[in-house]
């Protein structure tokens, strides 16, 4: 009898794709601030890249303005979660009603996302008529415009000094919960008829239009949805770092998100996770190079910026040798995470039998 492949067994998926990552995250969070901060950065990067993939990978536009939406989200959420006394001293230009309210982070995230989506509509209506490179440059322009506004409206944003002392509300649990819900929404979205329409538009916009897909509304709506999640991610980023200012949300941040999305694979939501895994942890591993170290008695001088250089070279190599990114357009984890059968398999006897058969099959193949 031909047994299932091991990786097709629901129980195997549950163990390797669901339980194992959760255990790793929990273990890392338990090891102290340094590790839990890294895990949080990772989760936020996943959300950023996945939301960018909605636009760049699934709908065939090429936006590079994610940092702008992050900035909007971060500032709006900061307005809502800071205490009235902090706001009164730091941001005297805020309207009175905004100074007085203080709400928990979760509703603030929602408002932040909506604000970012609103900005996306405003900018999207003129800009999304451009194609290809023109759109990319216009979205870069959006970053410059947002940065200029943040740096120059002193009384509302505290100018280039930025806002300090944000409440540290973005705990790992909250970040991962938000990430999971967001990924679930995005995953269902691209598997819906709306998502298939998007992919059709990406592959051939004329053909898609002739089949009755309204390109303009598709483009603007997906741009908005993407900006919504970018705003949420920016808000979490702000509450994780507790300091925000215009300089954080500039080209570097946007390029980093684009880099994550390219390395992982633009047309895959789980690609965002793979890319974020690389882009969060590899620079950490390379950090010793930046400050100089001792190699077999040889003193290596500190090389400022070397990890960025290595990541840039890595990006060029990925683009040259694996253009579609590491994952291409395949999904790795999300199918297991978001399908009910993965979880119900725990209670089904047949699943255990299948797993046993698959393991046996694996061993038999090895022997022959």
């Amino acid at each position, binding site marked *: 009898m031909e047994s299932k492949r091991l990786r097709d067994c629901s129980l195997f998926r549950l163990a390797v794709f669901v339980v194992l990552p959760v255990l790793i995250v929990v273990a890392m969070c338990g090891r102290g601030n340094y590790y839990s901060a890294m895990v949080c950065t990772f989760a936020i990067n996943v959300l950023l890249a996945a939301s960018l993939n909605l636009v*760049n990978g699934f709908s065939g536009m*090429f936006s590079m303005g994610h940092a702008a939406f992050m900035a909007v989200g971060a500032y709006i959420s900061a307005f809502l979660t800071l205490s009235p006394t902090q706001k009164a001293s730091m941001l005297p230009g805020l309207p009175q009603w905004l100074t007085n309210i203080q709400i928990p982070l979760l509703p603030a995230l929602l408002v932040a996302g909506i604000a970012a989506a609103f900005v996306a509509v405003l900018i999207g209506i*003129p*800009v999304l*008529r*451009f*194609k*290809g*490179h*023109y*759109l*990319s*440059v*216009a979205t*870069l*322009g*959006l970053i*410059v*415009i947002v*940065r*200029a*506004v943040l*740096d*120059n409206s002193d009384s509302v944003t505290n100018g280039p000094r930025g806002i300090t002392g944000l409440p540290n509300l973005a705990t790992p649990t909250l970040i991962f919960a938000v990430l999971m819900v967001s990924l679930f929404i995005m995953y269902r979205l691209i598997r819906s008829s709306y998502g298939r329409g998007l992919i059709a538009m990406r592959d051939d*916009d004329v053909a898609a239009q002739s089949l009755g897909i309204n*390109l303009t509304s598709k483009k603007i709506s997906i741009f908005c949805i993407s900006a919504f999640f970018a705003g949420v991610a920016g808000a979490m980023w702000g509450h994780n770092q507790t300091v925000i200012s215009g300089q954080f949300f500039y*080209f570097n941040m946007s*390029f980093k998100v*684009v*880099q994550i999305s*390219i390395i992982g694979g633009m047309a895959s939501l789980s690609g965002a996770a793979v890319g974020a895994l690389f882009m969060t942890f590899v620079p950490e591993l390379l950090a010793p190079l930046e400050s100089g170290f001792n190699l077999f008695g040889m003193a290596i001088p500190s*090389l*400022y*910026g*070397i990890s*960025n*250089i290595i*990541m*840039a*070279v890595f*990006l*060029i190599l990925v*683009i*040259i040798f694996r*253009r579609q990114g590491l994952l291409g357009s395949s999904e790795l984890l999300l199918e297991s995470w978001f399908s009910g059968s993965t979880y119900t398999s725990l209670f089904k006897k047949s699943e255990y039998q299948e797993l046993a058969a698959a393991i046996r099959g694996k061993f038999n193949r090895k022997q022959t």
Partner: protein
Amino acid sequence: MSASYFISQLVNGLRLGSVYAIVAVGYSIVYGILRLINFAHGDIMTIGVYVMLMLMTTIGMPLWAVVIVSVVVSVFAGVLIERLAYRPLRSANEEATLISSLAVSTLLQNLLQMIFSPQKRAFHLPEFFSVRHDIFGIQLSTMNIMTFVAVAVIVIALTFVVQKTKIGTAMRACSENLDAARLMGINPNKVIVFAFAVGSGLAALAGLMLAGEYKTIDPLMGFVPGLKAFCAAVVGGIGSLYGAVLGGLVIGVAEMLFAGLMPTSVTAYRDAFVFVVLILVLLVRPNGLLGQSEGGRS
């Protein structure tokens, strides 16, 4: 506001616009052939400036020799980047080369920061360049005059090259249709290398003008002017030589007039203003001011 203030702002704008124009020409000829926004173009400008600084402060070479060496180094850098990062992607789509150029830009910026430290450095040209001349009542420094002359010379020389020489004809053919040009026996790689060489050399010259004006340089100085120059190329109509020059002048003048004439509360938005101009121009004329067919809009 007096007329002389307006005129001096206008002259400043034309001066800045000339620098943009020189960079934009480089963008435009590369984009015309490859459909590639070379984000690293601005950073090649930075390389050129740092080479000049090093040669002037450590060896003390005369300026004309410094400029020649720096142009040669920049040309070499541009061609090398094309060979390593863009040629393997010849068959790829637009986004792939865009990302590659972005990565090259990050790489160069960090490399420059690693070698020269991220600090700003003073960049002083000989006194001769800042001497003021009075021409028809307008104050112009030697540097300003040289910038204007340089733009004029570059435009005339490039017009000659593009219209009259064999390689120029090949360039026009390639920007019209790369595949058809290949079938006509043109080696596109040669043309592309030539385009990168010309663009990079011009970028180094523009860097000299920019650094001479600001008096300080840093490893990230090239990126935003590079981006604005690309805006200029798009505003003028990308792929067109005169369009790039016109776009550069329009953006430069608009930026300086905005900075000089608007109330101080909004002048800090001058970088943002450039992009607003870009978006507005593209909405009215999707192919830019002098652009012809094949626009950026669906």
